[in-house]
């Protein structure tokens, strides 16, 4: 422990804060359990941690039926595909619109309209159009990711510091060099900054579409449990989804850190 750390007031010490955070989580789970045992929370609707944990363990160990691993894999594949396609489209179209003002102006009202729709309501449309398999889930994830990446790229490329462009042009940059040395790095950095949000949306899109209509995936597993009034199964599914989301976010945080070394610390 360094001398500076010792002098920190009690309320600002990292160890104290972490201990408090752990207490809050333990209190939440314990409260849930005790209120459930006491009958305040109806087991039929709210289940209990002591029922949910064994259920999760059971899912991971059972040999009959469809393994939970398959559902996890399906959801993760849909999420990654939706994220990749949405990011690619958002980058390409955002870049094109920022570079061609007329194109951007022409599409502006249509895009604003689409962006105003709460896109989860499109899930039934996609399920009708693309069926209950992978495609409809990926489509919903793509529409969610696309607009985030599109606006981030568009703004970053449009508002790029013109001194940077002037400078590289005088240093001898051709059009291609301006694109690859200035405009795309600016866009890329905006995408990296919005990556954690858009990946979260991709995940939500995949799960919601599965919930509404599919025959596999974590969303489907929850929908099935719900159909049997099995609240323990619903919560078990939610816990697994939350764990996956945290894992995904931690992974992206590492990637973001790798690509943000050039940024001042406060902007990371």
């Amino acid at each position, binding site marked *: 422990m360094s001398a500076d750390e010792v002098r920190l007031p009690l309320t600002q010490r990292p160890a104290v804060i972490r201990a408090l955070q752990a207490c809050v989580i333990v209190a939440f789970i314990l409260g849930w359990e005790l209120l459930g045992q006491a009958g305040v929370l109806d087991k039929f609707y709210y289940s209990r941690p002591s029922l949910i944990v064994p259920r999760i363990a059971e899912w991971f160990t059972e040999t009959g039926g469809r393994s939970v691993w398959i559902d996890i894999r399906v959801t993760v594949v849909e999420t990654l595909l939706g994220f990749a396609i949405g990011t690619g489209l958002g980058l390409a179209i955002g870049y094109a619109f920022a570079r061609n003002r007329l194109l951007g102006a022409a599409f502006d009202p249509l895009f604003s309209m689409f962006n105003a729709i709460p896109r989860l309501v499109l899930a039934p449309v996609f399920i009708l159009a693309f069926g209950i398999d992978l495609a409809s889930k990926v489509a919903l994830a793509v529409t969610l990711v696309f607009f985030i990446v599109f606006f981030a790229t568009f703004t970053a490329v449009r508002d790029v510091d013109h*001194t*940077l462009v*002037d400078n*590289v042009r005088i*240093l*001898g940059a051709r059009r291609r060099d301006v694109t690859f040395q200035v405009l795309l790095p600016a866009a890329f*950095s905006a995408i990296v900054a919005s990556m954690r949000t858009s990946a979260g949306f991709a995940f939500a899109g995949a799960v919601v579409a599965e919930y509404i209509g599919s025959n596999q995936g974590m969303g489907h597993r929850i929908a099935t449990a719900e159909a049997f009034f099995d609240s323990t199964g619903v919560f078990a599914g939610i816990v697994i989804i939350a764990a996956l989301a945290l894992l995904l976010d931690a992974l992206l945080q590492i990637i973001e850190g790798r690509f943000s070394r050039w940024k001042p610390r406060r902007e990371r």
Partner: protein
Amino acid sequence: MNSRKPQVLTAMAGPAISLRGVSKTYRSPGKRPYVAIEEIDLEIDPGRFVAVVGPSGCGKSTLLSLVSGLLAPTGGEISLLGTPVRGIRSDLGFIFQRDALLPWRTVAENVALPLRFRGLGAAEAKERVEAWVSRVGLAPFLTNYPHELSGGMRKRAQLAQSLVADPAVLLMDEPFSALDVQTRNLMENELLSLWGAAAKTVLFITHDLEEAIALSDELVVMTAGPGRIKARYPVALPRPRNVTEIRFEPAFAALYKSAWADLRDEVTRSYERSLRGA
């Protein structure tokens, strides 16, 4: 004359930079046309250091954008190193007032840019980049990113970036105005020693009369917008100079006094205009 660049100096019998009757009017829809500079005639011989001083809004920066080809004039002829300026020129160095280093590239990568754009291999570029980075005193910071450097260090890196491809002409747009006074004097002295060693033609824009006189061979005073040339003074001060000490020379004071008489009226006019919001 400098023996290292005979090809440039012999190929160019005339001035390094020449402006004849150059004007620039900005037009934008819904606004009255704005005349930034008007009827500028200026010739700068190779190897000279010329400082242009004027009140804010006199079109000083426009002048540099025109010479570099970033902007096209609305009237007149500009030529650089014997050829007319039509479009962006990359045979010159340009130090911008604002930070112009790519924030996502290290010092070494930034300085290497002009060489990479010219198709030089990484190995050959490396040697010249490292030589220039050390020359501006940034050797320990080769792999640092711009945000990790101070304002003065970023200017040094920009200087290395602009000079690494060895341009014959250097345009500088209030390059040190954002620096504190001590750093600024240090940078001015280093600029003079780099310039003295390389015999570049320098066109230096500033609003600071002291800086202009301390650095230059010739002083050009501009009028408040529309910018015209109000007066030109030869700066007959000995070289090599130390910018902090040259100010104590009697000749410096005398020149400052007469140039300030020209500049004062323009600064007042420019200020009054800004109060009227025009």
